[in-house]
């Protein structure tokens, strides 16, 4: 074609002029300088997107000259005229550091501009500014085929509806289609002008420089461009209602317009963050996996495009061809992500985010266990590793001027000022009513519980700290731990100066409160045998009282588990006295009373009965294990057993509680002390035989 040949010559000339190193030589820039005046905002009714006016101002004179003046590389290269120190500092502070070697981020740098300020380059494309100072800011890494609409890019949707030549009307070949980049430009962009990114507006301008004849010389290009020209439209239906006329396989397009396929791959690999020291090593693998999955998804959907409904392949097409995609640049995404990560920084993650840490630990253990058992592929679970901040001690000293009297009255977060002078006046004991005393006592108990709980949490945490600590620190840790355990016990029993602990009162108070009971159950494993036995005795001694108080909460059974663990370590003497406590009989048994209210109450309660069973079971175990054990020779035990069996027989079955578990060796226990008949009775009553349920 004649037209083609003509333009070919021009093309060569133009291409040679594509790379202009000196900005002053660059006619585009110089012209822009001349046409500098700021865009006047139009009347009330003109939308801000009346950019056609703005664009024209820039594009117009350049197009007339027909010179591809500004090259991509110009934008891409970081050698920019210095814009002033603030811009550079801005960028360096805002952008994520390329390769940070240390995973520890110190406290955020002091900024003159507060954190919430977005980086300066994020401003609405100020076209003039950008031409003047083409910093490598907004070149987009994923080079999507952006074919700016012929009717001006930033028209408001309403205006678009009115544009006659718009493709909304189904016009496939808009007259002044501004297409594609020249092959060289494209190659440059794709070949990896690395940190180069362009804003959509710049890109539009850039492609505007390349003249339409360029594209028309390559019919394929044109075809490709039209196909992908989907104008922005107000409603979604309209937008996606105009499916591209044909969908050739991506491979065809490869040489001229790299298919969306390639584009999809490219951005993903380019978006791969070089700085992954903050992320778990598994993360990288998972990223690849995910990318593979996405690609596979796309492939399968595309492959079955024939069968599936049009809208599905349409969807995939739109994903790739969405001209408004990536308005938010990678840099900006990283910036937001960085802020979010900073918010996760913590000096003590176990303190701040306990449940999260524990949950992920559990998950990891699970997956580790799975891997050990089966040789299947290890399920990759990404884990967010938040940078740990070193704890900095801030000693804030209020500002002081020399030579002045007093301090500045400035109140800040670090230095709060005392506004109210609150004086604590203690009330005298006489004035209080009984109610108040009771209430105060309860409150004191609650405070004790809270304090003891803090100690408990610390003690429970020692194991983990032990593992993390160094050798020298371990001894100190153990000492601390022991001390805390002692403190806990003292708190439980009520610290008394003397050795004797005559009163169970303090302990009882704690046990009246639901949280107290749970706490005792948790503390028991840490106590020494004697201490724990003491607690157990106190519980047994006051069991009816506790049962009464527990009627609403029903939390006592939680104590069964630690108690049973304890029991199996106790010697026979203790077990005997324990049984005694349970039945509340004096040391020397006199004539047995007809009814034992203590024991009755015990038997009628789930916890009580279960505890009794445990004790009995333990006794039986001791007896059967060693025939010449003290238990057999102990009269007390025998007597107690008689009483116990008597009581058990006496109590009506209906009032008998349902125990948590019935130990198996009770039958053999009872068989020692009662005759056949009574044994049978006991069996049926207590449902000791397994078959009966």
């Amino acid at each position, binding site marked *: 074609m004649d037209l083609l040949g003509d333009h070919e010559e021009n093309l060569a000339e133009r291409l040679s002029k594509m790379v202009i190193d000196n900005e002053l030589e660059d006619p585009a820039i110089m012209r822009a300088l001349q046409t500098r005046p700021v865009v006047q905002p139009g009347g009330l009714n003109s939308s801000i997107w009346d950019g056609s006016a703005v664009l024209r101002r820039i594009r117009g004179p350049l197009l007339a000259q027909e010179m591809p003046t500004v090259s991509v590389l110009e934008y891409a290269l970081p050698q920019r005229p210095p814009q002033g120190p603030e811009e550079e500092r801005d960028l360096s502070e805002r952008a994520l550091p390329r390769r940070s070697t240390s995973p520890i981020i110190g406290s955020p740098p002091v900024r003159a501009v507060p954190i*919430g300020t*977005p980086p300066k380059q994020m401003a609405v494309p100020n076209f003039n500014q950008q031409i003047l100072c083409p910093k490598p800011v907004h070149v987009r890494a994923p080079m999507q085929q952006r074919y700016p609409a012929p009717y001006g890019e930033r028209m*408001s*949707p309403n205006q678009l509806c009115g544009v006659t030549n718009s493709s909304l009307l189904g016009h496939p070949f808009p007259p002044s289609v501004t297409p594609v980049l020249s092959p060289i430009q494209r190659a440059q962009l794709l070949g990896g002008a690395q940190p180069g990114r362009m804003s959509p507006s710049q890109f539009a301008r850039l492609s505007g420089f390349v003249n339409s004849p360029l594209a028309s010389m390559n019919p394929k290009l044109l075809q490709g461009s039209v196909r992908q020209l989907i104008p*922005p*439209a*107000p*409603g*979604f239906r309209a*937008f996606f209602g105009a499916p591209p006329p044909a969908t050739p396989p991506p491979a065809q397009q490869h040489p001229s317009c790299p298919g969306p396929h390639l584009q999809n791959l490219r951005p*993903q690999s380019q*978006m*791969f*963050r070089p700085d992954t020291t903050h992320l778990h090593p598994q*993360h990288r693998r*998972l*990223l690849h996996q*995910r*990318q593979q999955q996405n690609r596979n998804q796309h492939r399968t959907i595309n492959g079955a495009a024939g069968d599936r409904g049009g*809208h*599905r392949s349409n*969807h995939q097409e*739109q994903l790739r061809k*969405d001209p*408004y*995609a*990536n*308005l*938010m640049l990678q840099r*900006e*995404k990283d910036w*937001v*992500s960085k*802020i*979010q*990560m900073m*918010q*996760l920084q913590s000096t003590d993650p176990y303190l701040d985010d306990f449940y*999260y840490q524990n949950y*992920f630990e559990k998950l990891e253990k699970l997956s580790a266990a799975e891997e050990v058992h089966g040789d299947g592929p290890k399920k990759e*679970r*990404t*884990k*967010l590793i938040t940078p740990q901040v070193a704890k900095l001690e801030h000693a804030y000293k209020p500002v002081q001027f020399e030579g002045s009297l007093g301090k500045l009255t400035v109140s800040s977060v670090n230095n709060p000022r005392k506004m109210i002078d609150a004086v604590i006046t203690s009330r005298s004991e006489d004035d209080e009513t009984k109610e108040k005393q009771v209430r105060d006592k309860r409150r004191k108990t609650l405070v004790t519980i809270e304090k003891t709980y803090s100690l408990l949490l610390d003690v429970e945490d020692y194991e983990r700290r032990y593992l993390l600590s160094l050798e020298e620190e371990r001894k100190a840790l153990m000492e601390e731990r022991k001390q805390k355990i002692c403190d806990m016990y003292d708190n439980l029993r009520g610290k008394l100066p003397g050795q004797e602990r005559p009163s169970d009162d303090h302990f009882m108070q704690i046990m009246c409160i639901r949280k107290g009971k749970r706490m005792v159950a948790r503390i028991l494993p840490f106590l020494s045998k004697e201490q724990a036995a003491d607690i157990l005795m106190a519980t047994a001694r006051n069991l009816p009282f506790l049962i009464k108080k527990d009627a609403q909460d029903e939390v006592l059974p939680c104590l069964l588990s630690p108690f049973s663990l304890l029991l199996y370590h106790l010697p026979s003497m203790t077990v005997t006295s324990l049984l005694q406590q349970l039945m509340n009989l004096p040391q020397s048994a006199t004539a047995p009373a007809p009814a034992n209210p203590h024991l009755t109450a015990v038997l009628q309660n789930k916890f009580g009965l279960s505890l009794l069973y445990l004790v009995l079971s333990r006794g039986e175990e001791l007896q059967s294990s060693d025939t010449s054990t003290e238990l057999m020779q102990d009269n007390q035990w025998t007597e107690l057993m008689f009483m116990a069996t008597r009581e058990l027989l006496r109590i009506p079955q209906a009032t008998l509680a349902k125990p948590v578990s019935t130990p198996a060796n009770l039958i053999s226990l009872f068989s020692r002390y009662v005759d056949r008949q009574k044994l049978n009775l006991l069996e049926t009553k207590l449902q000791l035989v397994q078959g009966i349920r």
Partner: protein
Amino acid sequence: MNYMPGTASLIEDIDKKHLVLLRDGRTLIGYLRSIDQFANLVLHQTVERIHVGKKYGDIPRGIFVVRGENVVLLGEIDLEKESDTPLQQVSIEEILEEQRVEQQTKQEAEKLKVQALKERGLSIPRADTLDEY
């Protein structure tokens, strides 16, 4: 790209179609173009969808910038499943009319209720006279 595994982050939702519910009850549907650390959203090609009963109507709104604190919830719309919904789309005029009618009936019912309570000497504080917090 998996930005922040184990957390809730909007970065991966960018350029996808979302349905956003605002605190004032409006439902917006748009392409999420940009976010920031406060979860302020920039929605592109936004459509305000009004639902009345089984019908709904779309009002095209253009570009929305939503302040993060006003968002109740938002979710990605599955483009494939978007079309199979039992709801029926009607024109804007129609849906606005329906909405007006619905508001009216609600108000009347409310009025009757308040009247009945007043007769019995009770009063329920109305939601709009209460503070938000």
